[in-house]
């Protein structure tokens, strides 16, 4: 059957027949890097058009409908526009940091691609601390935002960056705790093990109500971590014009933009892996026929389907809710989400020890 893992295997076999093992590994790395960059660009294009269409339909509009069939090529046009725009660097800015910041944002987003299993047996690097790696790397994101805000030499940018710093650092906690609850249930940090453990049912179903609570908290926390509305205080265009990327234009702005979308994709992918079984198809108990039909759907479609469903939910948040105020944002984290997720982790630990889950 056609699948990503077969393609990967045949490439590997083909290369190892012609080259020695070292060159093979190097070539495979190059191919993987190109694939990640390609995926990166694709995701940017797809997510932008998706966001525009989702927002349009929610706002009783048609959305982009001029470029290409039903406006589906609109994001190509947008990219082209951003590419040919002049990338300005303000006079008073710290030029080195100012130009470095968007690349850090993008590199972080790329690094996060490594442990994600896109399909059955299709993963760049199945390292044994995969989940820890993800939560560690994603914290670097805040550095690029702080860097951009500080180097712009603009008060709006600085305030946006400071807000973002406070926000990401605090929401990391509850995101981490909800990830932890699944790690407790699985007993492993390895992404492939976590997915394998959900072969007989996804954690969101197996883990009873505590897993659902952890899932909801995870979704809220990652929405905040990726600076998406209703937690888009770092950008808050009605307060801070554009927050930390006020001074960015052209391709440098596009990189921030792209990094934001790819981050959304990655956190949703992590959510899929942890709670919705990654590439595992949807099975119901002993309905053999149903399960068999589900197995026929390729694993990559399962993975991307679930991930895009989560992305849709995050977009749904954005186009429904108003923005929070900075103190309310921190209140929500420290007074509501953090206590709830701490108690939740305790309950899940008890559950895991007593084997109450399925």
């Amino acid at each position, binding site marked *: 059957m056609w699948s990503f893992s077969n393609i990967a295997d045949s490439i590997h076999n083909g290369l190892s027949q012609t080259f020695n093992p070292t060159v093979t590994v190097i070539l495979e790395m190059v191919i993987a890097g190109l694939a990640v960059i390609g995926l990166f660009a694709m995701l940017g294009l797809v997510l932008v058009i998706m966001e525009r269409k*989702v927002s349009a*339909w*929610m*706002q*009783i*509009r*048609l959305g982009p409908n001029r470029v290409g069939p039903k406006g589906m090529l609109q994001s190509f046009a947008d990219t082209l526009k951003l590419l040919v725009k002049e990338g300005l660097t303000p006079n008073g800015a710290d030029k080195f940091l100012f130009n470095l910041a968007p690349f850090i944002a993008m590199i972080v987003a790329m690094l996060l691609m490594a442990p994600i299993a896109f399909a059955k047996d299709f993963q760049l690097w199945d390292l044994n601390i995969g989940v820890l790696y993800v939560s560690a790397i994603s914290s670097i994101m805040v550095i690029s935002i702080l860097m951009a805000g500080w180097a712009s030499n603009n008060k709006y940018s600085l305030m946006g960056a400071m807000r973002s710093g406070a926000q990401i650092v605090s929401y990391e906690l509850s995101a981490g705790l909800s990830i932890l609850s699944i790690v407790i249930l699985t007993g492993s940090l390895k992404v492939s093990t976590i997915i394998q453990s959900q072969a007989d049912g996804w954690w969101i179903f197996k883990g009873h109500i505590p897993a659902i609570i952890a899932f909801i908290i995870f979704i809220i926390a990652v929405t905040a971590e990726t600076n998406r509305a209703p937690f888009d205080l770092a950008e808050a265009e009605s307060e801070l014009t554009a927050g930390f990327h006020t001074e960015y234009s052209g391709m440098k702005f596009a990189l921030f933009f792209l990094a934001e979308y790819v981050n959304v994709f990655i956190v949703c992918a992590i959510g899929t892996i942890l709670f919705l079984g990654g590439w595992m198809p949807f099975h119901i108990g002993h309905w053999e026929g149903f399960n068999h039909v589900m197995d026929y759907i390729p694993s990559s479609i399962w993975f991307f389907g679930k991930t895009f469903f989560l992305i849709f939910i995050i977009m*749904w948040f954005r*186009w*429904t809710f108003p923005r929070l105020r900075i103190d309310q944002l921190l209140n929500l984290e420290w007074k509501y989400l953090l206590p709830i997720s701490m108690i939740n982790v305790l309950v899940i630990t008890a559950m895991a020890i007593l084997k109450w889950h399925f």
Partner: protein
Amino acid sequence: MKFITKYIKEVWLAIKSLFVGMRRTGYYFTHHKEIITQEYPDNKDSLILPKRFKGEVVMPHNENNEHRCTGCQACEIACPNGSLKVVTEFNLLENGRKKKAIDKLVYHLELCTMCNLCVEACPSDAIIMDQTFEHSVFDRNELIKVLNKPGSKIMDGVE
């Protein structure tokens, strides 16, 4: 205990209010019939502006290239920002008397605010408001228009 029930109730009501909002946007996401976008240049043919819409001042001419303007300058006086200028000439009639008539009625579309006061003021209904609204041009001078067509005469019986 009371505190905890209050806390849980608060959280529940908050989440409920958020879901109510999401249900509304979700409804519109799935009901594309409610979309109100008008695809403007495409629907030009079906776009009917009401008769009273004040687009720009025009002077209707009949098939003999005749208009109803007597050159009385009532519109010029009524206009609050000088968009209309009447340039008059004197025609010699057969009986030897001179008659005032318009040479040109210059209309500055760039100054006009479409307030309709000139049309109201006109005693002989010579000017009306047209329903055009696409006024943008590349050269500003094109906005200065002469309302009476070249070679046009005043209609018989209009004083």
